């Protein structure tokens, strides 16, 4: 019945509805309101699916992916602007965007190349500790983000030989061992502050002090607005990069390596080269996100980068749908926001996540927004 409208218009309406929902949802304080809104959203999503909205959105995504991305980005900025004066929602939004960025990095690793990484939280931590060490010691903040990515990638290089030589369960043990090793190392090493961790100075990019509250249309905004905008820019960058990677011959080679190493080798695709590329690129993305996260939090401590945190990151990738960049963002939003909004379940959040992920694995293994067949370029585009 929606066939009469152009798909892009339907998609725009859906994105707008999503934005309004996100704003209303984040304003709620009571558990009852939050739960009712979740139920309403589930019902609306189901009805929209029946009415052909999903169909229209996917046609819009096929015909004009750039326009759709721009719409979603504008909606995201809209949500950020709506909370420009509130510390807590902004912190939460920025965290969602950073976690989504991390998930995009992990997605390159095991969504595309099939290289499992249970140490995502460790590489995130390497980025955060890099900015803790650097920003305080006078290194310009604008350098600390890429350096965070660089260090994460370099440390990852130390694991490259075992990661590339092993497969399946044997590969899993490498990153699991590294995750445990990393956290233990931080706890016992005084240079990194031991169990208490380290404080991180506020970022200052070319005279733009992130610790300072910016003024927005005459009103004082929260200083977290700086971080939310930076996180947004980072996510947009990572998203574009991962999207283009997927829709290129490089992404195809990664898929071929994941799906069948023997077959890929017989068609000239270098197995090691592709795995190393994906592992290093993924860790670099995760490290940059970690560097910004460290600055935003103001301190870094080993307890934020444990094996269990790594599991949550992996859960985001799976929940969103392996290989699906939009899925990463949706899943990161759910995993970060839900427990914060539902005070009643705050205490039970790990239990709930594990139950949800098990249910997803059993009943919808391709995730919330399953990956679609690759289209390199928009249909009938220029």
């Amino acid at each position, binding site marked *: 019945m929606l066939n009469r409208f152009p798909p892009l218009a339907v998609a725009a309406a859906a994105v707008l509805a999503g934005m309004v929902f996100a704003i209303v949802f984040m304003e709620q304080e009571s558990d009852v309101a939050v739960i009712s809104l979740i139920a309403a959203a589930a019902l609306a999503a189901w009805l929209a699916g029946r009415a052909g909205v999903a169909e229209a959105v996917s046609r819009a995504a096929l015909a004009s992916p750039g326009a759709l991305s721009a719409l979603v980005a504008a909606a995201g900025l809209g949500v950020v602007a709506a909370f420009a004066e509130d510390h807590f929602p902004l912190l939460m939004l920025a965290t969602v965007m950073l976690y989504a960025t991390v998930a995009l990095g992990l997605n390159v690793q095991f969504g595309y190349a099939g290289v499992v990484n249970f140490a995502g939280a460790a590489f995130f931590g390497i980025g955060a500790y890099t900015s803790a060490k650097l920003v305080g010691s006078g290194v310009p903040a604008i350098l600390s983000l890429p350096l965070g990515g660089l260090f994460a990638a370099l440390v990852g290089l130390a694991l490259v030989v075992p990661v590339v030589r092993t497969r399946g369960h044997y590969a*899993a043990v490498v990153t699991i061992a590294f995750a445990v090793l990393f956290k233990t190392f931080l706890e016992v090493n005084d240079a990194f502050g031991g169990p208490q961790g380290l404080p991180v100075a506020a970022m200052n990019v070319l005279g733009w002090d992130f610790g300072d509250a910016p003024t927005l249309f005459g009103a004082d905004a929260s200083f977290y607005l700086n971080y939310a905008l930076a996180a947004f820019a980072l996510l947009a960058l990572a998203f574009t990069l991962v999207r283009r990677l997927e829709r290129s011959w490089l992404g195809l080679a990664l898929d071929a390596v994941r799906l069948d190493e023997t077959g890929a080798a017989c068609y000239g695709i270098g197995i090691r080269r592709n795995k190393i590329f994906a592992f290093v690129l993924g860790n670099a993305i995760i490290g940059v996100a970690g560097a910004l996260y460290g600055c935003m939090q103001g301190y870094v401590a080993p307890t934020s980068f444990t094996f269990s945190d790594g599991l949550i990151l992996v859960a985001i990738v799976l929940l969103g749908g392996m290989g699906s960049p939009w899925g990463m963002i949706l899943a990161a939003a759910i995993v970060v926001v839900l427990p914060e909004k539902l005070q009643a379940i705050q205490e039970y959040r790990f239990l709930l996540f*594990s139950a949800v992920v098990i249910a997803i694995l*059993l009943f919808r293994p391709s995730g919330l927004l399953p990956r679609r067949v690759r289209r390199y370029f928009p249909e009938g585009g220029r």
Partner: protein
Amino acid sequence: MDLFGQYVVNGLMLGTVYALVAVGFTLFFGVLDVIKFSHGDVLMVGAFTGFTAASGAAALGFSHPLAQLAATVVFALAGTAALGAAIARWLILPLKSAPRLNILLATLMLGTALRESVRLFYPDGSNPKAFPALLPTSSWQWGQFTLRADSSILVVTGVLVIVGLHLLINRTRLGLAIRAVAQDEETARTMGINYTLIVLVTFALGSSIAAVAGVMNGLYYNEINFGMGLLLGLIGFSAAIIGGLGNLYGAILGGFLFAALQMIGAVAMPFASAYKDVFAFAVVIALMAWKPTGLIPERASDRV
């Protein structure tokens, strides 16, 4: 020298516990080619079940340590056996044809669920529990070196369990059936073996062996907590992997090797004994680079 002796005893004890955990991973991998990562947390559930049974027995008036010990062992073993079989039946068998990573994740998440359930729902579950000392506390003295009766009993028990498992797998009809299923599901079925039953029995068996390790751990350190299974599970998994999956001897070798690494880390670097786990896991990573399919590799199976 006396300190060295203590390290050896401690290392043997830890090695036995690790080997018992690793053996479970290997058993499960053998029959289903899956990694059940909730294994460490099943161990923790076993330790808590045993602890509850011991407290219950004491509350019912069984004051003799042996009676409490019997209750501990019986309930811990039975409880984890049932839990292990239930996990196999409702989580792992339904996912049998899913990608390996999905099963690994599902069981990792189940481990988290078990851990969190104990923390949230066991009375005062977030705090460590003092595990009762149910074994004789006497000790023998050789110069500076002290050998405690309880640790000797524990090590001997652990070794006996491993030997018993070896005999069960290699000398009994049940063991034959388990090996048949491990070799090939289809062939085992045509031989008239009840495939599902054998899988469930294997998971029950492996899980109750983990409970032995959990109770041993409780008796040795006189303390258990809801998070104890995570590291033990990780170590047991690493041990099974460095030994080479699907091979009981590899798992035992890996278990003792890991304990030895920790001891070497502690003895060789006394100035930094806190780094012993860092050292041990670093060696695990290096071992994987050197022997990507473990010290005793499983047979290659990628048919082209």
